[in-house]
């Protein structure tokens, strides 16, 4: 069977028209094309003909794509050229997706380290600190964040876990389906709307003061759906044989759930809770509406404004001086460290206690 000219590259003069395989590029083709692209990019960098900020990188990528696709088109034909172009584009997309995270982390660490110290973290507050002056710290904000996130966790874990149990163990029919659906919808509520709801409900209607507790309530609304989703997923992977075995021994269903199903899934559930905590710790908008800013330590989460790390950063950016900006970066690094600590714990727990495959 001869190769079809509309699919494969045209047959060259000396070639056997009856061969069974098409011509292929050598294995080192992508690397060679990339090298050409990088060289041109380097040339742009050296000659300094910069049209736009990232010109060398953009030129390098474009040259690579053109060389690579063109080469394939000449040797392998149209179909393979399309395939190689798509592959190259997907590699680029994936590389591009990595850029922001790395860039942000490096920036935060470098800038944050300038003023970060144990003193800054645990002792100093912003009381009587002039925005232009150096010094001050986040002790009050760390305290506020711990209390507010703690309150949110204490409320949302029971509600979330019970809802998850309902959905995975009891829920059948219309009600369960609609709860399931609206839990998903609730994950998409803008955080500022959650803060606004707590403001209208807790502060305007019920007449409570602005407080860390109100902030905790706002965070609860954001945290519950995340806890439900992750806990439900974990409960669903508990093997049915365990439930059936326990039920067959005559154990009441609620005890089966509490003593068999929950302990089996507990590590996964804790992982999910950790991830949920990491999510809400960085929320700023709802805190601005429910507890606003504070410059000093407020131990009482039930009365008066309370600082928190995100609102501390917001406040320091707004002041706009160099030393306040330094403090903002150090606050950002503190926040990132807390989030990463929760993430890492969650990952380690998940890896250590993951159900083993048999």
């Amino acid at each position, binding site marked *: 069977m001869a190769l079809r000219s509309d699919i494969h590259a045209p047959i060259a003069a000396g070639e056997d028209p009856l061969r069974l395989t098409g011509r292929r590029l050598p294995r080192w083709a992508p690397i060679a094309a990339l090298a050409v692209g990088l060289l041109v990019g380097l040339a742009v960098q050296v000659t300094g003909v910069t049209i736009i900020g*990232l010109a060398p990188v953009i030129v390098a990528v474009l040259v690579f794509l053109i060389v690579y696709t063109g080469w394939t088109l000449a040797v392998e034909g149209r179909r393979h050229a399309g395939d190689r172009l798509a592959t190259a584009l997907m590699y680029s997309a994936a590389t591009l997706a990595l850029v922001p995270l790395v860039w*942000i982390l490096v920036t935060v660490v470098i800038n944050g380290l300038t003023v970060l110290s144990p003193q800054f973290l645990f002792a100093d507050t912003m009381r009587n600190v002039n925005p232009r002056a150096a010094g001050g710290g986040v002790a009050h904000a760390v305290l506020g964040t711990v209390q507010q996130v703690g309150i949110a966790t204490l409320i949302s874990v029971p*509600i979330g876990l019970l809802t998850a149990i309902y959905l995975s163990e009891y829920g059948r029919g219309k009600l369960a389906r609609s709860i399931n659906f609206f839990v998903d919808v609730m994950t998409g509520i803008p955080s500022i709307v*959650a803060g606004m*709801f707590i403001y209208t409900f807790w502060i305007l209607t019920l007449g409570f003061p602005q407080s860390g507790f109100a902030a905790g309530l706002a965070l609860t609304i954001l945290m519950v759906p995340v806890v439900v989703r992750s806990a439900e997923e974990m409960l669903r992977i508990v093997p049915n044989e365990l439930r059936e075995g326990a039920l067959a021994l005559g154990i*009441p269903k609620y005890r089966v759930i509490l003593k068999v199903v929950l302990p089996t899934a507990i590590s996964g559930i804790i992982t999910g809770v950790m991830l949920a905590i990491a999510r809400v710790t960085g929320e700023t908008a709802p805190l601005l509406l429910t507890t606003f800013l504070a410059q000093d330590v407020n131990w009482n989460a039930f009365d008066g404004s309370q600082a928190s790390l995100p609102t501390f950063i917001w406040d320091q950016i707004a002041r706009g001086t160099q030393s306040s900006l330094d403090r903002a970066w150090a606050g950002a690094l503190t926040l990132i460290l807390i989030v990463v600590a929760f993430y890492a714990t969650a990952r380690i727990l998940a890896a250590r206690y993951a159900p083993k495959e048999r």
Partner: protein
Amino acid sequence: MSLLTPPRITGSSVRAGDRNFRFVTTGAGLTVLGVLAAIAAFLVWQSLPALQNNTGNVVTNQLWLPDADPPQWGIAVLIFGTLWTSIIAMAIAVPIGIGTALFITFYAPRRVARTLGFIVDLLAAVPSIIFGLWGLYYFMPEIVPAAQWLSTYLGWIPIFSNDLDLYTKSILIAGFVLAMMILPTVSAISREVFWQVPKGHIEASLALGATRWEMIRMAVLPFSRPGMISAAMLGLGRALGETIAVALILSAVFDINWQITEPGGNSIAANIALKWGEAAGNGRSALIATGMVLFFITLVVNMTARWVVNRRKEFSGAD
């Protein structure tokens, strides 16, 4: 007395403990529904005062003077800004997010795929205030020359034109930062959808001699189109409600401006965060009214997206 009479089963068939536990868990589930209903009810109720004494047309008025006498404000500018920034963000994040998802599902070796997936998810954990801080001081200076280039060479396209010769704090920059923030959502949901493509379709098309790209175009993409649309919509929901990063990056000019390279722009959420502190009673009520609109917009977007995803799940077992 016949020996064949079955023994009588004593006691109630449902234990009290079982009944109570079921009751408690159902109650917890109902609170979720209750909270959503309460959010809608309280936002509507508390925005009524400002809606009633507004002398401007809520929909078309382009001023924001809710604390003036008589109060006059409208939501047109905010809705425009919210949608426009989100559309720019989607235009950037959706292709890259879907590309990343395709790469992770069909191209990368398993180890790489897992790590890459984790890193992209980690991007979702970066607090929005940090996105804003970084965007303002590190990302913006890098993008300004690109914006300049766009307006110099592509300025004949109206949205790229720039009459002020200023390029900072623009909708373009906010759109880029928003794109990074919604990328994890788009990528994660698309990945989930690509996983559901029946293995049989993939193997069949490869066996028929399709290249990998042809396999994706003919077997994967048609099957996952609804899922990809809802992934994009969930990203849109994220972008619409994003507050702090937008508030920090945009220069909060209160007018409708299509030109994405000029400073300016606004969004419902950013406007709330910026105006809340200085707003008096009626001002807050007006802000709550805008928040209510945001809530209902995101509710509709999310419900549509979830509905499509869930419908997909039900018959995805077809293999």
